């Protein structure tokens, strides 16, 4: 049995003459929290909709939970929280969850138990009897998340689940996602909030103009930027430093060096002292996902 819960091969979607997704080829492993990154208009939501069967691909193939995209049986084991989540707001929180549980065909007694458990989990137990139109934006996102978890999914798609949430709400959602990972649930996480992605994702792919252009395993992202402010720099010193990593920037006697990990910093410092180079500052900064995002997208990418 394959280890992948999502496998796509050149999935493509055109709307008339506009290509929304040019080539979506990716694999998502069971149990990982998978981040889906890209600027506005990169085709993230359309890609997600194709995987969920909401949008029909123009060409290419895709399997979700071992079945073709949009397959009914696969949907029994999928949860989904859409971006800009909307619902029948005349219902109370509990009625809303009962309705969606019925669509999953969950037996009423089991459903009631599950709803109580989820209301506690998203911290809405005391608001279950209130109409949804009285809920704040954060409460709406959280009840939407509870809706996505009703059927104990093996795979859950979260489209911008933390947008519009206050810091407490974001932490709550992040904790829920981390708990899902502990439980072995695969999470397909689409977000613009890169700090959330960094905090919870195992792996990310970068999507640009409808194509996957890079993949990055966050747990293995140990590359560090080392900033050095020195008294003098000569060619010999530059040759020495180049053996530890690549020089990203030189501004007078200040250097930014990209090194593979922290272990070489003491050695670099020792070499500087041995060469009698005055050292004014040695600062190591782990490279942020935001910096990587900007690099990967390139200078030609503009705000969407």
């Amino acid at each position, binding site marked *: 049995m394959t280890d992948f819960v999502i496998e796509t091969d050149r999935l493509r979607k055109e709307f008339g003459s506009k290509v929304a997704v040019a080539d979506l080829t990716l694999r998502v492993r069971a149990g990982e929290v998978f981040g889906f990154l890209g600027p506005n208009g990169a085709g993230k939501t359309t890609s997600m*909709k194709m995987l969920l069967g909401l*949008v*029909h691909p123009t060409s290419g193939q895709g399997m979700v939970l071992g079945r073709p995209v949009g397959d*009914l049986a696969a949907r*029994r084991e999928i949860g989904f929280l859409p971006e800009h989540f909307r619902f029948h707001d005349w219902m109370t929180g509990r009625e809303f969850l009962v309705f969606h549980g019925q*669509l999953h065909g969950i037996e009423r007694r089991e459903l009631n138990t599950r709803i109580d458990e989820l209301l506690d989990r998203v911290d809405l137990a005391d608001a279950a009897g209130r109409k949804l139109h009285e809920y704040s934006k954060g409460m709406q996102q959280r009840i*939407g998340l509870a809706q996505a978890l009703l059927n104990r999914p093996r795979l859950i798609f979260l489209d911008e689940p933390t947008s519009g949430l206050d810091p407490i709400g974001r932490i709550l959602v992040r904790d829920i996602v981390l708990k899902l990972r502990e439980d072995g649930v695969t999470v397909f996480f689409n977000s613009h909030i890169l700090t959330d992605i960094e905090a919870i994702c195992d792996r990310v792919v970068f999507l640009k103009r409808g194509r996957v252009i890079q993949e990055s395993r966050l747990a293995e992202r140990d590359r560090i930027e080392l900033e050095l402010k020195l008294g003098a720099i000569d060619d010999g010193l530059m040759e020495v430093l180049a053996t530890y990593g690549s020089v990203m920037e030189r501004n007078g006697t200040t250097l930014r060096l990209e090194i593979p990990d922290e272990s070489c910093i003491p050695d670099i410092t020792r070499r500087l002292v041995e060469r009698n180079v005055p050292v004014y500052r040695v600062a190591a900064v782990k490279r942020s996902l935001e910096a990587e995002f900007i690099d990967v997208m390139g200078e030609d990418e503009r705000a969407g």
Partner: protein
Amino acid sequence: MNGILTIARLTIREARQRKILLLSMMLGAVFLALFAWGFHSISTATRANGVQAAQVRFQWNVITLVGLYAVNFLVTATAVLLPIDTLSGEIASGVMHTLLTKPMRRFEVVVGKWLGNACILTFYLAGMAGGVLAIARFEAAYTPPNILAGLGLLWLESLVLLTLSIAGGTQLTTLANGILVFGLYGIAFIGGWMEQIGTTFGSSTARNLGIAASLLVPIEAMWQYAATLMQPAFLRETRLSPFAYASSPSPFMIWWAVGHIAVVFLFAVVRFEKRDM
């Protein structure tokens, strides 16, 4: 099947929660009160004037059909408006995204919405037409002939419009759908009159255009057929009643209307299945 019933129940509950049923019942009660008042006044005047028994029965028939004509208008308007945004509104707002990722087929959503709205329309038609008939019975001990067949045709008419409105909602925005279905209603209405006027004045072109309009949207034909059935033969033949039509629709129109519903419904299901959300 679970999906169909859940969506149908949701549709009925939504109509109740959004006060649609309450408003319909309140306005319906006002209409019936007005009709009862008018019927009672005419009944009192008729008795005072000592009109002949046969003439009185024709009079009751015309008044009752006036009431049913108004009911027919209210039901057809409801059949267009009630489901006008049931699909298009939920597609535009994104509510549909959450529904369609549940383990049910897309056709179950269309069938569930249709079923829920059809139940509401049936309830509304039964209440309003039943009210008019009860008033006629109570005030004048009168019931028009072939009442079940007549009401059945009005029901069929409302289902034609309901199905058109649902089908439009699978492709069009709410506003565009409303314009389309009301436009079709207008074509059918004018077509029905053209057919009658063409028959009366011997214009086969006008008559044929009217028939074509009825084939396109078989709703006015359903009312004319129902009205013809619910009149005594004498009134029909002498054309003394405003509801005695020069050209009575063929029974074939019933099957045409049933086929129309089936084809439009199938179109709705297929388009909804293929649509990108």
